[in-house]
Each structure stands twice: as structure tokens, then as C-alpha cells.
């Protein structure tokens, strides 16, 4: 007889209840807050609080709606369409749909890993993420449970999947109509995204031996110039470690690391190095097309997310077999999972098939190295590459008519024809500059009326800089450990560490990869804590100082001021958001389980953390940002972020939106706009840096902390915008808030603004919006006040 989960009583023992299923779970599952497993409107009050202060700002890319057969409907000027939705509602619906897409990606990734890891290691395999009691902060805060084993994450993903289905349902024509509620639901999807990511990364850290809160994780090589192209080369593309792990194991077991080069593109690369430090990293998604066209890869292994849709087509031209290892991306290829490895290899080597779907990890592990050993010599003998030879290159650049069509199709509007003209005269320097700024999309190829393969020309011209493209990145460390939070939490909340800046997301930078390096270098020298993940983490490691050292080699990786931490791949973003929960829990003793609103309220008012997705391109990046917003963390993207079509922007001139309650007695306090925005863009890096400093202000800053933050805000504005910020004074609450080095000068300026100052005692008597009160307990949630003032 098989016992199923559930409860029953035995006749005659009516007072005894027998539970089959999880044993001992009840005690752990007692939620401490009011919203364990919130339904799709379960946190709507909190969302409204956010939206009322940080108004959604819509910048539509299109003014029509064509979701249903009533359409196309013209919604220009916020008109209503046939179903009754207006452009504001439609824009909010799109924000929700984008958030759902992103959340679904990370959560499905987590589900794939969870099923696989439970099958391999069993559901009782213990979670181990390093020296932490609070091992799954997002899971605790959202679900109200404390998972101990990987099997404990099953109900978590069940919840995420069920909620995402509910949210998708609301986007159908004739369902939700209010922009405000679409936004609340988008915030819910963002929160689910954080949860799905946490599950994915915790289980892979626990089961696969990834670094566990390791501040001294080893360095990995990174760049387009790191591989020896004479050896057979395997390139894994995407985000999911499951298949590449088997390849790495097989190569390890058979001593093949000196015979075959193996590296990754995009986040799979992160997790390959976390799994086996011998693996290498080519770079972000922007490098996919560039590297494939170089002809260096002999085998391409794809899994999921951020894999170009044209990989098979591109690979086929160069006789590079594609092994698709995940059900989500199959390219119309035959599923050969039940065939023998040798038979599949024969068909791929002969070119009978350009690629296969292979879902059996054992077979993938064996097939890929064997295939590389066969394909390598064949392909290298033929010298297969998409890049033109020297003579062809010269002919191609002379064909350019300067029509500028490539520039008009380029996402960055790069001046390609200028580089072509210079190359006609033998000057390749302009192309070498373009190589870093180019996001490798290939739209220019389609646009050229003279049929110049523009991307290939750029890459051919840039061979010198590509050969030198060799950097270092500290391998993803995973979570921030509890001891680090204990050490640093106080500095963060009081403001004496000026802020945590999290550089996350993709490589769609407005002006090249180098910007990220420059921004990080400026801010880390100012003692901000810099956390990175995903493609941004890679790009930070691509550049060196005059001594030949990357930022990862120059700065240690502990969660303290002036350090540079890499958490890992895209799903490791969860740990960055979770760090703020840890601060609330460990430093301030806030209860976490089922207590999202209180935690998010704490983060919004006290933890000076900001996310920067300078090159964000994907729906996933938007979902992550939206999830961070619901947790009270502001996010800034590059200018391309306006194409996400929705931001959350505060209005400092609307004083009534900047009221908070004092938790001690419920009195209403009008505060400075801190943080001023929740999601916004900047046009250039020079604009971004002072904005980041400003977004680190929090109402809870003590005077020393505020003075430090104000110092950086003023200095960065003066350095990059050549001006004292217009609004610096509104962050001054008393004379101790003023930066020490500029105190005299700034006090004079305050006097000119009409503030009353005792010049003898150098004290501000009148002028500030509010006074500093070290016991101030700012909150936006009335129920958190000890005594609500009538």
C-alpha cells in the first residue's frame, strides 16, 4: 500500500492525528507577518503607496493596440480602444506582460533545475549557501516558510507558477482595465521573479558545489581573446548550468581540459565557472554573433534565455554543430535524445544534420567533447570563418556609399560609414572603437543596400583589439553572508557607508562596455559597496588599469565599503535584493516570514541601495527591476530603458507625496524626497553618477551619513555636470549634515537662500524642511506605528 500525503485518524484513537508528508514543517511555517503567500492583490495597499509617490510614467513605443480582433485600435492621445482600454491602461498592461515574461523565464529556469536536482540528489538534500541562518530571505519574506531542503522549494515554485497564471489571465482583453491595478500586478510579477531567481540559485549553489558566500572566490578568465583557437573549442550559450555541468565533468574525468577549450557566453558562462573554475568566459550576449562569426567555436551548446534566435542559421553557415539542450529552445531540430552518441556524432560531423535536440545530460556530457575533437581538426583545416580576408576587406570598405542606412538601423546609431572611409585609407582605429560600442545585433547587415556584411567588417578590422581582449572576473560568490551583514548593516542604515550600488543586467549600453568600468571605478573609489551580476559583472572585468589589473584584482570582494562583489549569474540577482532583507532582519531585528510590506517599508526608508541596469535589454531585466521596486529599491537604467515604456518617477514639488509617519507615535512628517525615484533612466554616464549618489539618500540617514552622501552628490555633480546640484539644500536638516570640507561655503549659500543662521556658533536656526532626530522611525505603513496619532 502506498501512503499519500494528507491527514487521517485511526479508529479508537480520535485524539491522534497522523500526518503524511512533510514532518516537522508546521513550526517553521508559522508566518510572522500578515501576508504569507500573497495573492495577486494581497499587497495592493503597499503597491498603491509606492505608485502614489512614484507615479508611473508611460513612454509608449507604439500608439496602437493590436492584441485582439477588434483592433488595430488607435490609442493616440490616450484615447480608448474598442474594448475600452486607453493608452495608459494599455501601457500598464504591457508593463505587466513584460514583468510576467521575465518572471516566467527565471522561474521556469528554477523549475527545470529543481526537477533535475531533486531527481539527482533527492528532495531531502540540505540547502547550504554559506554562513547564514537566513538562507532564503525572499522565500521567507514572501512565503512565510524557512526552507531547509531543496524539496522545500517545491511549494514555492508551485506558488510562483500559480500566481503567474493568475496574472497572465488578467491581461486578456476584457479583464483588468485600470492602469493602477495593472501596475500593482506588475509589481507582483516582479516580486515573483525575485522569488523564482532565489530558488534557482540556492538549489544550484547547494547541490553543485558553487562558491558559498565566498568573498575570495577565484578569478576566471574573460574576453574574446582568451581561447586558443588552435584547439577544439566548445562554447555554451545561455543561462542553465545543467547540461554544461555534464560536459565539464566528462572533460575533467577524461583529462581533456588541456586538449579542448570550453567557455561560455552570457550567464551560462558565470555558472560554468562557479561549477568548475577551469571554464572560461567569452562575454555577454553582445558577443554571441561576433564570436560565432569569428569561426572559432567548433561546437555550440545552447540551453535557455538570452540565446540569439539566429544561432542555428549562423552556425550552419560555418559548419558549427548546435546541440540544443533545453526544451525551451529547439530551433526545429530533431530530438535525438534516444539515439546513440556515435550515431548523432556521425550525422553532425557529416553535416547531415546541422544540430540536434539532446535532452539526456549523460549523453550531452559524452557527446560534446567527442564531437569537438572531431569537428575541431576538420573545421580548422578548412579555415571556416565569416570574417573577410584582407583583400576582400579592402574591397568591402570601398563599396560603402555613405548612405547612412546602417547608422539608422543601428540601436546605438554608430557612425559606421566614417569608419569605412577611414579604413579605405588603412586607418582601422575607428572600427576598433566601434567594436566596443557595437552590441553585435547584426541589424546593419540587413540594412546595407550595397550588401556589405557590416558586422563582419567591424570584427575583421578589430582583430588587434580582440586578440588583446583578456580580462579577469571574480567568480560568482552567491549570497552575502550573515556575518558580513552584521558587520556592515549599521553603516548602511546610518548612511556612513554611502550606499550599495548593484550593477546588473545586460550589455545594451548606450556608449560601449567601458562606461560600466568607468562608473564602477569612480563609485568604488568613493567607498560605495559595488555588487555586480550577470553580463554587467563580466563587462566590469574586461578592462585594466595602467598596471594591467582589472577592478576585481584591485578591490576585494567582501560586503564592506569600497569592495567589489560579484554574486554570479542572472538568477544571482536574487541575493542582491535579498541583502536588503537581511539588513532589515539581522541588523534591525525585523520579522521576515510573510512580512513583505514591513520589510519593503524598512528598505525604502533606510537602506541606501540602488540598482543600475545600464545596458538592460530583456524582459527579465525589467522584471528584476520591478521586483526591486516593490522591495523599496530604486533602479536606474540607461537611455534604452525608456523603451521599457514605464518608469516610476517621484515629484519633489508635490510636497504631500513626501509625508511619512513616525513609527513612535504615528505623527506625519514631511520629508525630503529620499529616494527621489524608483525607476528612471539617465542619458549618459556623466548624468548617471550624481543621480546614483542622490538616490542613496534615505530619511533614516544620521548626520554623519547624510554629510557623506551629500559630499558625493555635490562632488559628482560638480565633476561631471559642472554645477552644484539645484536641490542639494533640501537634503540638509542641520549644520552637521553639511559636508565638512565645504561647510563654510554651503552655509553662506543657505544664508543667501534665506535660511536663518547663527554665524557665531555656525548653527542653522531656521530653513530646513525638518530637524534631525536620531530616534525617528520613518514608515509609510500606519499599522507599524506604535500609537497612531489622531
Amino acid at each position, binding site marked *: 500500500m502506498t501512503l499519500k500525503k494528507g491527514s487521517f485518524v485511526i479508529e479508537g484513537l480520535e485524539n491522534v492525528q497522523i500526518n503524511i508528508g512533510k514532518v516537522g514543517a508546521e513550526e517553521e511555517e508559522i508566518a510572522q507577518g500578515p501576508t504569507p503567500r500573497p495573492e495577486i492583490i494581497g499587497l495592493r495597499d503597499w503597491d498603491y503607496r509606492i505608485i502614489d509617490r512614484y507615479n508611473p510614467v*508611460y*513612454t509608449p513605443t507604439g500608439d496602437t493596440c493590436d492584441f485582439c480582433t477588434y483592433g488595430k485600435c488607435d490609442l493616440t492621445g490616450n484615447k480608448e480602444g474598442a474594448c475600452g482600454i486607453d493608452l495608459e491602461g494599455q501601457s500598464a498592461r504591457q508593463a505587466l506582460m513584460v514583468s510576467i515574461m521575465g518572471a516566467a523565464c527565471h522561474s521556469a529556469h528554477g523549475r527545470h533545475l529543481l526537477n533535475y536536482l531533486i531527481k539527482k540528489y533527492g528532495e531531502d538534500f540540505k540547502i547550504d549557501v554559506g554562513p547564514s541562518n537566513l538562507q532564503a530571505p525572499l522565500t521567507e519574506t514572501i512565503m512565510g516558510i524557512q526552507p531547509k531542503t531543496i524539496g522545500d522549494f517545491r511549494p514555492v515554485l508551485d506558488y510562483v507558477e500559480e500566481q503567474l497564471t493568475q496574472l497572465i489571465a488578467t491581461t486578456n482583453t476584457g479583464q483588468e482595465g485600470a492602469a493602477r491595478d495593472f501596475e500593482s500586478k506588475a509589481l507582483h510579477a516582479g516580486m515573483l521573479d525575485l522569488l523564482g531567481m532565489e530558488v534557482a540559485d540556492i538549489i544550484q549553489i547547494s547541490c553543485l558545489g558553487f562558491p558559498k558566500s565566498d568573498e575570495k572566490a577565484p578569478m576566471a578568465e574573460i574576453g574574446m581573446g582568451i581561447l586558443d583557437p588552435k584547439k577544439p573549442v566548445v562554447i555554451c550559450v545561455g543561462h542553465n548550468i545543467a547540461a554544461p555541468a555534464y560536459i565539464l565533468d566528462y572533460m575533467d574525468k577524461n583529462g581533456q581540459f588541456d586538449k579542448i577549450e570550453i567557455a561560455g557566453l552570457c550567464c551560462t558562462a558565470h555558472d560554468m565557472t562557479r561549477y568548475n573554475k577551469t571554464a572560461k568566459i567569452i562575454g555577454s550576449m553582445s558577443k554571441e554573433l561576433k564570436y560565432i562569426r569569428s569561426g572559432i567555436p567548433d561546437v555550440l551548446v545552447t540551453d535557455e534565455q538570452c540565446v540569439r534566435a539566429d544561432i542555428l542559421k549562423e552556425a550552419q553557415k560555418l559548419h558549427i554543430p548546435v546541440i540544443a539542450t533545453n526544451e525551451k529552445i529547439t530551433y526545429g531540430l530533431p530530438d535525438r535524445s534516444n539515439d546513440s552518441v556515435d550515431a548523432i556524432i556521425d550525422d553532425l560531423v557529416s553535416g547531415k544534420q546541422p544540430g540536434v535536440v539532446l535532452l539526456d545530460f549523460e549523453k550531452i556530457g559524452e557527446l560534446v567533447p567527442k564531437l569537438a575533437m572531431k569537428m575541431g581538426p576538420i573545421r580548422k583545416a578548412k579555415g571556416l570563418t565569416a570574417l573577410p580576408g584582407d583583400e576582400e576587406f579592402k574591397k568591402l570598405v570601398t563599396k560603402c556609399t555613405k548612405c547612412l542606412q546602417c547608422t539608422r538601423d543601428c540601436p546605438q546609431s554608430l557612425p559606421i560609414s566614417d569608419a569605412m572611409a577611414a579604413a579605405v585609407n588603412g586607418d582601422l582605429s575607428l572600427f576598433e572603437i566601434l567594436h566596443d560600442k557595437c552590441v553585435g545585433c547584426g541589424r546593419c547587415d540587413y540594412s546595407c543596400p550595397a550588401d556589405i556584411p557590416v558586422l563582419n567588417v567591424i570584427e575583421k578590422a578589430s582583430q588587434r583589439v580582440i586578440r588583446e581582449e583578456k580580462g579577469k572576473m571574480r567568480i560568482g560568490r552567491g549570497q552575502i553572508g550573515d556575518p558580513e551583514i552584521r558587520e556592515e548593516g549599521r553603516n548602511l542604515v546610518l548612511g556612513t557607508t554611502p550606499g550599495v550600488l548593484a550593477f546588473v543586467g545586460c550589455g545594451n549600453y548606450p556608449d560601449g562596455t567601458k562606461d560600466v568600468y568607468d562608473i564602477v571605478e569612480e563609485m568604488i573609489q568613493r567607498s560605495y559597496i559595488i555588487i555586480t551580476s550577470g553580463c554587467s559583472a563580466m563587462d566590469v572585468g574586461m578592462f585594466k588599469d595602467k598596471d594591467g589589473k582589472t577592478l576585481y584584482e584591485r578591490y576585494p570582494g567582501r560586503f564592506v565599503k569600497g569592495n567589489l562583489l560579484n554574486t554570479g549569474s542572472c538568477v544571482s540577482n536574487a541575493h542582491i535584493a535579498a541583502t536588503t532583507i537581511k539588513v532589515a532582519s539581522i541588523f534591525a531585528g525585523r520579522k521576515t516570514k510573510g512580512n513583505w510590506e514591513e520589510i519593503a517599508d524598512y528598505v525604502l526608508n533606510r537602506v541606501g541601495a540602488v540598482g543600475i541596469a545600464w545596458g538592460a535589454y530583456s524582459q527579465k531585466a525589467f522584471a528584476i527591476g520591478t521586483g526591486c521596486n516593490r522591495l523599496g529599491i530604486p533602479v536606474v537604467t540607461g537611455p534604452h530603458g525608456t523603451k521599457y515604456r514605464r518608469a516610476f518617477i517621484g515629484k519633489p514639488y508635490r510636497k504631500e507625496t513626501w509625508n511619512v509617519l513616525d513609527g513612535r507615535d504615528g505623527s506625519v512628517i514631511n520629508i525630503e524626497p529620499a529616494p527621489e525615484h524608483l525607476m528612471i533612466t539617465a*542619458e549618459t554616464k556623466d548624468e548617471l553618477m550624481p543621480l546614483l549618489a542622490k538616490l542613496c539618500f534615505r530619511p533614516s540617514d544620521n548626520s554623519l551619513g547624510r554629510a557623506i552622501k551629500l559630499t558625493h552628490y555635490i562632488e559628482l555633480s560638480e565633476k561631471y555636470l559642472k554645477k552644484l546640484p539645484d536641490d542639494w539644500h533640501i537634503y540638509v536638516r542641520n549644520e552637521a549634515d553639511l559636508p565638512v570640507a565645504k561647510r563654510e561655503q554651503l552655509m553662506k549659500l543657505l544664508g543667501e537662500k534665506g535660511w536663518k543662521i547663527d554665524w557665531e556658533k555656525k548653527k542653522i536656526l531656521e530653513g530646513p524642511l525638518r530637524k534631525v532626530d536620531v530616534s525617528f522611525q520613518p514608515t509609510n505603513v500606519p499599522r507599524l506605528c506604535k500609537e497612531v496619532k489622531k
Partner: protein
Amino acid sequence: MNAKNPSEKQEEKVIDTTRQAVPYQTGNIPGPKMARAVMPAVPGKMLARAKRPLLIVGSKIDSEDVLARVVAMGKAGIQIASVGDSYKYLADKGLDAHYMNMHALASYLCDPQWPGLDGKGGYDLVVFFGITYYYASQAISALKNFSNIKVISIDKYYHPNADMSFGNLKQDVFIAALDEVIAQLPK
């Protein structure tokens, strides 16, 4: 007026800013309503007549010839919203220029309660140039759909989300067009 110095007398040159009135970035086709292509005299006269005009300039005003035109328009008394990092080019020019984030500005311009950059109220006409193309295009899509403010692009690119725009111009025509706009402004 030559390309280097907007204060000198303009050379006689017939320019047509209504040609090539197709979205500069090929895929940037928002919908049925797209900007009317105009000659420079139109925005020039509208700027001169507006009660409360605002010029927005961004990070692409760094070349000497373009910057000279920004300064000339500012000297003609038009208030400037300096978005992106453009303020660093205007800091020492003695203009009524204010730094503002473009995304925030788009939001505030849609809000009737916004007191403006100087506390004197909102604006009835917005004219812009020198902003990263797609960034400007997205930002003004907010104004197009959620405000009643007239928006004119006098950039060298056709901006479909504006009410009026120049077509896609070569640099010399663009500079000459700016000079024609400036010629309409009060001296």
C-alpha cells in the same frame, strides 16, 4: 550666418527641412499620428510668439557649431532645460539654463501642477534638439499622448512623436536651419 558663428549675417541659402521626413531610426513608427514636417520659420515664429516656451537640449550639443546655436537661443531669452550631461557645456554661458533629467522632465511636463524650472508655472511650447535620438523620441511620446503641450523637434532627425519636426538633415543644412529659427527670435 555661417556654421561657426550664429551672430554673423546669414548667407543666402535656400534650405528645405521638410525632405526626408521619415523616422530617423527605421523601426521607430509609433502609429497613425506622426509629426508634420516644417520649415525653420515655423518653429522660429512659434517660439517668438509663445508665452512660456522651453528649449530642451541634451548630450549631443558638444560640437562647437551646435553649441553656438544653443547659446544664441538662450541669449534670445528662451529658458533651457539642460538634460543628460549637457549642462557641462552651458555652465559658463550665462544662460537661463537648468539641469533636469529628461525622463523626469517628460513626466513633469505632463503634470499641470508642475511649477516649472523656475517656479513660474508650466510651458505652452517645447522645442528640442541635441538629445540621443531614441531617448528623445521615447520621452516625447509621453508628451504626445498624455499632455496638451505643443512639441517641436528642431533636431537634425525626423521625430515622429513630435507635433512638428524637421526631416532628416545633413549637418550643414541642420546648422543653417537652426540659424533660421534663431533669426525669428526677438533680438
